[in-house]
C-alpha cells in the first residue's frame, strides 16, 4: 500500500537542480498561463515564473502606461465641462414629459424640474475649452487635454457603472482594465506591483475591490491596493528583531527548500510561489522608497497641495507620478464623494461638490504639468472619468422638493478627459442642448477602453482570454465597440 519514500525519490532522481532552472524559465512556466482557462488559448503566451515580464503589444504603442483618475460617485459634467446655456434658460421649469418617458432614475420620481448650471462657465486656452469656475487651476493645462463630451453607459447605479467602466461588465468577476493591461504588457519594474490602486475621499468606491479584481485572469494581475498612510503595502516592513540580512538568510533557506519541493513534486505553483517570495523581498525596499513622497522637493509637494500623512487625492497624484516613473504599468486612483444628489449637505452642488472640486483641481493640474515637464506625458495616458453623468433635472427624491440642489444619475451623457499618450487635445462629441443624452459622435464606455488599448498598442479584439466558452475581452464581447479614431494624435 505504502510506497517507500526512497523508491519515489529514486523515481525522481533525474530532476536535478539544473533541470529546475531550465524548466523554470521555459516549458512548464509557459504552460501555466496558457491552461488556466478552459477552452481555446489566451492571446498572450506567458512565463509563469515571470508573469510581469515586459512584452510587446500588437503594434507600436503611443502610451506605455496609464494613470486613471476615477471620480467615484460620478461628478456633474454640467457643473464642470459641458457648457449648456440652454439649460440655464429652462432653470426651474417643469421637465417635459418626453424626457421622462421610458427613463429609469435612481431617485427622481414623478415630474421633476430642470436645474440650470450652478456655476458660471468661460473659455480657456488656445483650444477655447469651456470650464466652470470650479476648476481655476485646470485652466492652465486645457491645451493638453482632449474632452470627450459624448460618453454614455448602460448602467445607472454606481457599483455596476464603475464595474462597466473598468471591466466592461456590470457584475463582479471580470478582469479590470489594469489587469488586462498588465497581463498584456507586463510591468517594467519587477519590484513593484504592475497594477496599483490608490484610494482617497474617505471611502472605497461602491463596487469595492471588484473594480480592480483579476476576474478570470490569473490572480497575479489583480490591482494591489496601497495605502497612503502607514505601511504603503500592509506587512511591508520586517518585524522587529528581523533585519534585512536576516530576512535574506531565511529567504535563501526557503528558496532552497521550496526548490527541493518543486523537484520532488513538480507542481508549477511552487515555482510561482518561489518567485513571489523574491518579489516580496525586493518590494520591501522598492515600495518603501517609491511611496515615500517625503523625498520630493518642497516645491513639488506644494504644487500638488500635498498634506503629509493624509489620505488625499493630492498625495495620490504625486504618488502616481512617482510610480509611473518607476515603471508601474497601470495606476488607478479612486477619489470618492461626487454623488451630488442634493439629499444632504455633503451631496449638495453648492457644498460638498465644491469641496470635491477643491480636492482635485490643483492636484490633477499639477500631475499633468509635472508629467509634461519630465517628458513623461508623451507616453503616459492620463484618463479622468466618473462612472456616469448627472441629470439636467433637479433631483426630487421621493417626489418631494429637496432642500439642497442636486442631480440624479444620468447614464445618457457625461464628459471624460484624456491627456498625453497619443491623444490629440481638443474636443470630441456632443451631448444634447440640456446635456441629457450624448447625440453627436457617441462614445460608449467600451469604446473608451478600446481606444485606451489602441493607444497602448493593442487591438482590443485580439487581447483575449478564454473563459466560459468565449474568448473574453475587456470590451465585452456582447457589446459592439470601436476605437475613437477622432481623438488620436
Amino acid at each position, binding site marked *: *500500500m*505504502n*510506497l517507500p519514500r526512497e523508491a*519515489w525519490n529514486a523515481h525522481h532522481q533525474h530532476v536535478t537542480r539544473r533541470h529546475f532552472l531550465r524548466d523554470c524559465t521555459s*516549458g*512548464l512556466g509557459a*504552460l*501555466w498561463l496558457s491552461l*488556466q482557462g*478552459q*477552452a*481555446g*488559448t489566451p492571446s498572450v503566451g506567458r512565463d509563469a515564473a515571470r508573469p510581469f515580464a515586459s512584452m510587446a503589444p500588437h503594434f507600436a504603442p503611443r502610451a506605455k502606461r496609464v494613470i486613471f483618475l476615477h471620480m467615484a460617485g460620478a461628478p456633474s459634467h454640467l457643473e464642470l465641462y459641458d457648457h449648456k446655456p440652454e439649460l440655464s434658460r429652462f432653470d426651474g421649469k417643469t421637465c417635459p414629459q418626453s424626457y421622462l418617458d421610458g427613463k429609469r432614475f435612481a431617485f427622481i420620481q414623478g415630474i421633476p424640474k430642470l436645474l440650470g448650471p450652478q456655476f458660471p462657465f468661460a473659455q480657456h486656452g488656445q483650444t477655447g475649452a469651456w470650464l466652470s469656475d470650479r476648476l481655476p487651476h485646470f485652466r492652465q493645462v486645457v491645451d493638453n487635454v482632449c474632452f470627450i463630451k459624448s460618453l454614455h453607459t448602460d448602467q445607472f447605479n454606481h457599483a455596476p457603472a464603475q464595474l462597466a467602466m473598468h471591466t466592461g461588465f456590470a457584475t463582479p468577476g471580470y478582469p479590470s482594465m489594469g489587469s488586462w493591461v498588465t497581463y498584456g504588457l507586463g510591468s517594467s519594474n519587477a519590484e513593484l*506591483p504592475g497594477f496599483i490602486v490608490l484610494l482617497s475621499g*474617505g471611502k*472605497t468606491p461602491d463596487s469595492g*475591490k471588484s473594480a480592480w479584481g*483579476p476576474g478570470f485572469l*490569473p*490572480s*497575479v494581475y*489583480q490591482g*494591489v491596493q496601497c495605502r497612503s*498612510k502607514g505601511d504603503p*503595502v*500592509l*506587512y*511591508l516592513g*520586517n518585524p522587529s*528583531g528581523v*533585519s534585512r540580512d*536576516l*530576512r535574506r*538568510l*531565511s529567504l535563501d*533557506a*526557503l528558496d*532552497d*527548500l521550496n526548490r*527541493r*519541493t518543486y523537484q*520532488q*513534486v*513538480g*507542481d*508549477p*505553483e511552487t515555482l510561482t*510561489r*518561489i518567485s*513571489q517570495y523574491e*518579489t*516580496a523581498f525586493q518590494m*520591501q525596499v522598492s515600495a518603501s522608497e517609491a511611496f515615500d513622497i517625503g523625498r520630493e522637493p518642497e516645491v513639488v509637494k506644494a504644487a500638488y497641495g500635498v498634506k503629509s500623512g493624509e489620505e488625499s487625492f493630492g498625495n495620490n497624484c504625486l504618488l502616481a507620478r512617482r510610480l509611473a516613473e518607476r515603471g508601474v504599468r497601470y495606476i488607478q486612483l479612486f477619489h470618492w464623494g461626487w454623488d451630488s444628489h442634493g439629499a*444632504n449637505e455633503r451631496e449638495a452642488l453648492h457644498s460638498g461638490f465644491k469641496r470635491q472640486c477643491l480636492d482635485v483641481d490643483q492636484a490633477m493640474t499639477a500631475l499633468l504639468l509635472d508629467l509634461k515637464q519630465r517628458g513623461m506625458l508623451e507616453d503616459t495616458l492620463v484618463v479622468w472619468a466618473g462612472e456616469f453623468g448627472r441629470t439636467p433635472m433637479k433631483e426630487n*427624491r421621493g417626489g418631494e422638493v429637496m432642500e439642497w440642489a442636486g442631480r440624479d444619475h444620468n447614464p445618457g451623457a457625461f464628459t471624460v478627459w484624456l491627456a498625453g499618450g497619443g491623444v490629440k487635445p481638443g474636443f470630441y462629441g456632443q451631448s444634447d442642448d440640456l446635456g441629457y443624452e450624448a447625440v453627436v459622435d457617441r462614445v460608449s464606455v467600451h469604446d473608451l477602453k478600446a481606444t485606451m488599448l489602441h493607444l497602448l498598442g493593442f487591438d482590443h*479584439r485580439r487581447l483575449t482570454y478564454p473563459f*466560459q*466558452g*468565449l*474568448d473574453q475581452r475587456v470590451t465585452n464581447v456582447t457589446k459592439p465597440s470601436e476605437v475613437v479614431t477622432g481623438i488620436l494624435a
Partner: protein
Amino acid sequence: MGLLRSSLRLLAVLPLGLATATPVDFNRDVRPILSRHCTSCHGGVKQASGVSFLQREKALGSGKSGKPVVVAGRPEASELLRRVLLPDTDEDRMPPTDHGDGQRLASAEVEILRSWISAGAIWGEHWAFIKPQPQAVPTVQRQDWARGPLDRFILRRLEEETLSPSLEAPVAQWLRRASFDLIGLPPTPEEIERLTQGMETPEEAVERLLASPRFGERWAAPWLDLARYADTQGYEKDNTREVWPWRDWLVRSLNADLPFDQLTIRMLAGDLLPDATLEDRIATGFHRNTQTNTEGGTDDEEYRLAAVIDRVNTTWTVWQGTTFGCVQCHAHPYDPFPQEDYYRFLSLWNSTEDADLADEHPVLRVPKDPDRFQDIERLDHEILGLRTELNDSGRSLVRQTLWQPLDGISVTGSDETRFVVATNRVRVEGTVPNGATFVIRLPDATEFTALRLDILPRQSDPKRLPENGAVVGHLWMEDEDPIRVAAAKVEAERINADNEALAAEDAKAAEEAKKAGKEAPRKQDPKPLPTGLDRIEFVAVYADTLSGPFDPEESLKPGRAGGGSFPKLFGPRWLVFVPKQPIRVTSGHTLRLRLKHEIFDAETKGSILHHFTLSTTSDPRWTGLVGSERRQELQDRLAKARREREAIPATGALVMRERPDDDRRETRLFVRGNFMAKDVVVSPGTPRVFPPLPPGRPDRLSAGRWLVDPGNPLMARVFVNRVWADVFGAGIVETLEDFGSTGQPPSHPELLDFLALRFQGDLGWSLKGLLREYVLSSTYRQDHRVTPGLLARDPRNRLLARGPRTRLTAEMIRDQALAVSGLLSAKMGGAPVMPQQPEGVWQVVYNGSQWVTPDTEDRHRRGLYTFWRRTSPYPSFLTFDASSREMCTPRRIPTSTPLQALVTLNDPAYMECAKALASRMETLEGGRTRRLGWAWQRVTGTPIDADILGRLESLHRNALARYEEDPGLLKETGGGADWAASVVVASTLLNLDETLTK
C-alpha cells in the same frame, strides 16, 4: 480561425468528444454553437428581429422578416442556415461582422447545424434541468485499482485518454490532505506515526476526523461564504450585528451530521416547521445575513426588497447552481426562465417580518446557556399563544359589533397641519412634525363601550410604493373641566420650577465630580407633572393583526411604539380601544381624544396617521370582555411568562419570522427589475421548467421542501459537486455557481449523476458519508507528485490521474500556524473575536467601534471566529482570497501573490506563532538536531531528512551568529540568541510551499 481553433479545442478537452458516426445531439453539439454565436442577441433578453434560440417553438417560428428561422427536416428552407452561409460582404450574414470577433461560423459548425435540421431539429432540455439518471458503474480494464464506483468512473475516463492513475501517496501525504479536508487542521506527528506504524488504518483515521468537533468548524467555513455571513450590517454605516448564534448552530449541525435536506429546510424555513424548536429558528439566520441599510433617508422598503432579492438569488446560487438573478430584470438571456418565474418564486420569500430596520427586527433572544433552550421554547410558545388568544377574543367580537361612525368630531394639531374632516373621516394635510399630538374633540353626549380607529392609506393604487408607516404611539382621553385645567396649570408651573432647580443641582454636582475625577452622581428624579386633567385611560387594545415589531397594547403607555403599521403601511388597518367602564359624556363637558405619535427617526421619518376614521359602539360585551376573569387570568399568565423569559440571560440572534396569515404581502412583477415599477400580481410558484411546489400553503417551507425533493434535478448535483471541488481542487462542473447553459459542462457527467443519486439515496444526504467516500477513494489517495508529461497532458488535474494538491484557505493557513505553534485555542463558538490586526485598518466612520485584541485565548481562536466587518474584512484573510461577504461567494479563486508572502513573513500574528513555535522547540531535549527535526515534522507532516536538516542547521547557525554579533538586534526580539535564531527557522518553516499547501 480563432473560433474554429477554440471550438475544436473545446471539443477535444471536454468529455463529450464528437465522433462523426454518431447522430447530432442538440445539447452536446448544437446548443454550444447557439450559445456561443447566437443567443447573446437572439436569447431571452434580446430577441433581435423577434428571433430567439432558447426554446424550440421560438426557433421554429419566424422572425420579423416573416421567414421561418428553422424548418425541421429542411435545411434549405431554414433562414438560419441561409444566413450563416452568406458571404462576408453581405450585411445579412450571421453573426454580423461587427459582433464578437466578426468571424463566420466554422464549416464544421455549419455542418452540425445542417445535420441537426435535416434530422428534424430535435430539441433537448439542458442536461442540468433533467433529473440525474441512474448510471451503470463502468467496466474498466485495470482491475486492481478502483476501491469503489467513484474510482471506476474516474478510471474509465483515464483509460479512454490512455492515462494511468498515479501510485498511492505516502500515508503522511494522504493524512495531511485528509486532515485539512475534514477538520481544517494539520495532523500531529503522533497521528502520522500511528498511521505509518499501522496502529491506525486510514479508515479509522477518517472516522476519528469525522467525529472531531473540529469537523463542523472546517465545513462551516465555506458555508459562511455562501451565506455571506458577517458580523456587521453592511452598506455604508456597517454597524455591528449579532447573527453569530446561527454560525454556532451551523457548526453544531455539521458536527451532528444533520442530513443536508434537513439542514436546507431548517436554514430556509426552520421557523415554519410544525413545533419549531429554538434551534430551528436560529437556523433561519442563514438568510438574515443580508445587508441592512440604516443610512439616513434610505427607503426601508427598497432595502427590504433588496434583501428579499438577495435571498432569492443566494438560494438559487447555493442550492441550484443557477444564475437565476438574471431573471430579476428580464427573461434569462441563456436559460429558459421568463421574468415572471422570478417573481413567482420571490413571492415565497416576500412575507417575512424583517424590514431593513436599524434594530434588525426580528431578533430572537437566545439563552447564553444552551441548557435553557427548552425553557425559552416553552415560554415563547406560551407567550405567543396567550397574546394571540387575548387578541383573538377582541377580533371575533369586532365582527359581531355594530359600529357607529363618530360623527361631529373636530381635530386640532400643530399650526402647520390641516385636518379635513368629513363625518368621522379625517385626512391630514400639510406638514406633521415628528411626535405630533392630534387632539380630537368628541361630540357632546357621546356614549360608548369601545372606540374603533381605522387607519387608511392615503392612496389606494397597489402598484405604487407603500406609504410610510402609521403608528399610534399613545392614545388616551381627557375630560377637560375648565376649572380643573386652570388649577392644574398653576400646579404644573410650580413643579416645573422645582424640576429646574433639581436639574441645576445635578449639573453642579456633576461639575464637582468631574473636577474631583469621580463619576457623576445619579441624577435626581424630576417630580411628575400633575394628571390634574381627568384622564381616562383605556385598558385594552385589539388589533386586526399582531404582525410587525410593536405590540398594539403599547399604545396604552406613553413614550412607546404601539398599534398601527411599521415601517410601511401596505393597506387599511384597524385598532379597537376599550375603556374599563362605558364612557358617558354628559352635556356641557368636553371629551378629548389625544393621539400622540412617538415613532420617528432619520431613516423612517415620522410614522404619522394621515388618513383615518373613528367609530364607536355601545355594545356591552366589550366592557364584559375587558373585565372578564378569563382576560385577567390570561394577562397574569402572559406577564409572568414574559418576566420569566426576560430573566434568562440571553443574546440576540437575527432570525426569519413569517408575517401572520392575516398580513402577508402581495408580490408584483417589477418592470425591468425596478422595485418602483410594479406590474401585475403574481402567484407563488417555481420556474415552469422545474416541477411545481408540493401541495399545501406556498411559503418558504414549501420552497425548501421543493428544493430537497428528488424531483429537483439540481440540488444534489450542485452539492456533491461543491464538496468535490473543495476536496479534489476543481468541480466536476468547474463553474460551481452556474450549471446553466453558459456554465462549464461536467468533466465526468455520469459520475456527477451517480454521486447525486447516491447522496440523496443511499447516503441519506449525509455530508460525512459523502466525504468518507471521497477521501477514502483510490482517486483521492493518489500521490500528488506529477511528471512533466502528465502535467502537459492535464495541467489542471481535471482528469485526476494524480492526487489533488491545492493551497490552503485563508482560515487554514492561520489555524495551522496557531496549531503547530501550540497557541490554538480549542474554545468553540460565541461572539466573534478580534485577533491581531494592523493599526488603522478599521476606518470606522459612522460608529465608535474599535478593534481591540484581548490578551486571552480569544487572541488565538480559529479563523472562523474572526470578526468579519464587511467594509473592512480581516486583511490577511483577504490577501489569501477570502471574500468580503457582501454577496454569496460560491467559490474562492486561489491566487499566488507577493503580498501573501508579506503576510506570512511579517504579519505580527504570524510572528507570534513563529515565536511560540521556537519556544516549543527550545523546550525539547536532545539538542538542535532533534529540535529542528521535530519542528519540521510538526509543520509539514513529513519526517526530516539529512538534506533538509543540514539546510535548517545552517540557517540556525547563521542567524545565531548574526544575533551574537548584534546585541541591539537581539534585544528587539525580546529573547536569547538561540531562541531568536529558532524564531527565524520557525518563520521560515511557516512559509514553506509544503506548509501552505495540502
